């Protein structure tokens, strides 16, 4: 591993000043992904700016009825927060579906959003990868891609975003607060992450030096009826094959009318995939299993599976329909 300088500034302003827009500097939070990538040689920063003292860990209700989550809040603390459990269960379930107890005690909200793909070529410095070394090619298209993207991928990259939490935040329409050399701004989810197009080296719309300071959940009463469901190879501590985050508001219970819904898919794309086609198909229509399957199918019409990940198309369709049916059937 390349030797690096380490500093831990006490405030967001001093952390942003320390990083500047220098590509050789990286922010460090929980370290569960970045330290591993440094050990693998995938990341080799000359300086680490540890932001765990700079960013807030507080989880506070906002005057508008939402919830502001400090970017330093640990995944385990966030999942256990009573307001998250009661009003945004999809977020608690997504967090608890991810990683292990140990890693959830380390990983932060901000770091979780910025974790890199687990595509095996990206993590192996002896292999070409357009994300890690732009212009070298993508062996995954012909090689090991059983768990990679079916939606929104490009010739250059078929990687998926690995986060569970981000899928819930995309469904909830969370607002990501950012500070950087050019000042502060807010980025609405799912717009933080970007599709690979011809520049897969960039996972997000953030500019060099920008630091996530908080994630704000909107007041969303319908999120009290929400859920996260994850299909994976093992019962626990495994990345998703496909996951679904959904919230549903129904007039008149199961078989009634869908007043509103929010749906996002995980492990199918370079971004947490907001299922806007399915949402539009469902709003105002019947809350029946047939309607859920039809809407899910409409969303996946755009899927372009690779030779060895076609299983994800029916898996995503059926999982989406099942989660919605379960939510509709809740008393």
């Amino acid at each position, binding site marked *: 591993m390349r030797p690096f*300088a380490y500093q831990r500034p006490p405030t967001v302003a001093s952390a942003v000043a320390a990083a500047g827009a220098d590509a050789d500097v990286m922010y460090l939070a929980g*370290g569960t992904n970045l330290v591993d990538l440094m050990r693998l040689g995938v990341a080799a920063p000359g300086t680490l700016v540890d932001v765990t003292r700079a960013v807030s860990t507080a989880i506070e209700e906002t005057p508008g009825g939402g919830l502001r989550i400090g970017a330093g809040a640990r995944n*385990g603390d966030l999942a256990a927060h009573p307001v998250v459990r009661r009003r945004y269960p999809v977020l608690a379930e997504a967090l608890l579906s991810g990683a292990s107890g140990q890693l959830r005690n380390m990983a932060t909200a901000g770091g979780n959003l910025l974790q890199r793909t687990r595509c095996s070529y990206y993590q192996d410095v002896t292999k070409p990868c357009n994300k890690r070394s732009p212009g070298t090619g993508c062996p995954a298209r012909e090689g090991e891609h059983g768990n990679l993207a079916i939606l929104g991928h490009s010739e250059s990259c078929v990687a998926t975003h690995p986060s569970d939490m981000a899928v819930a935040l995309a469904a909830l329409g969370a607002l990501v607060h950012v500070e950087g050399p050019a000042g502060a701004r807010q980025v609405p989810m799912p717009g933080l992450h970007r599709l690979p197009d011809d520049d897969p080296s960039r996972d997000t719309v953030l500019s060099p030096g920008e630091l996530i300071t908080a994630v704000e959940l909107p007041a969303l009463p319908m999120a009290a009826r929400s859920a996260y469901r994850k299909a994976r190879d093992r019962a626990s501590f495994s990345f998703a094959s496909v996951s679904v985050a959904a919230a549903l508001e129904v007039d008149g219970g199961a078989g009634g009318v869908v007043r509103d819904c929010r749906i996002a898919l995980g492990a199918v794309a370079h971004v947490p995939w907001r299922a806007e086609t399915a949402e539009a198909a469902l709003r105002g229509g019947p809350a029946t299993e047939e309607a859920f399957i039809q809407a899910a199918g409409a969303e996946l019409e755009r899927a372009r599976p690779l030779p060895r990940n076609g299983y994800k198309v029916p898996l995503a369709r059926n999982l989406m329909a099942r989660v919605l049916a379960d939510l509709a059937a809740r008393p």
Partner: protein
Amino acid sequence: MSGGREARVKGQANTPGEDPAPVPITADLQLRVNDRLYPITADTRESLLDTLRERLGLTGAKKGCDHGQCGACTVLVDGRRVVSCLTLTVSVDDGAVTTVEGLAASGAVHPLQRAFVEHDALQCGFCTPGQLCSAAGMLAEAAEGRPSLVSARDAAGAGGPVTLDEEEIRERMSGNLCRCGAYPGIVAAIAEVARSAEVAR
């Protein structure tokens, strides 16, 4: 309290490809482990696991995968279980570390250690220190009412201590692998300690 224990970093970053033998950058810090303060000079690249094993002679925590995937290196930092392989030592200068050597008071045996022996919860023993530290952290989490995916949907019961049945224990301990497959004994040992803690409450 951290004022006197702030890490002091020395040296300059290397430019990639410039130097075939890169100069390490070090930091002076005071590491608190098992209620003892260790003044050390650590390479910024050093993991807490390597510091414990190679510098402090605390070889209980094991290096299994070194990628956060097996749990053999689990220790407690400020009472919370973490993987020490992905923890940079330089970042722990204001934390209190507990390793398997410090789980019980000197000369004593922790109830989990006794239960692991009674239930034959190991074969080769390589994963055992991590299992013990993880179980100790996990029992505290459950007593505080922190949910797992198994209990997440029970928001009505949120806040109270979680009753640890086998499904709960298996989910909460999924970050600790055992290549010998001693899981039935591990689950039984933890269940017994969890039950006596519940009775005590």
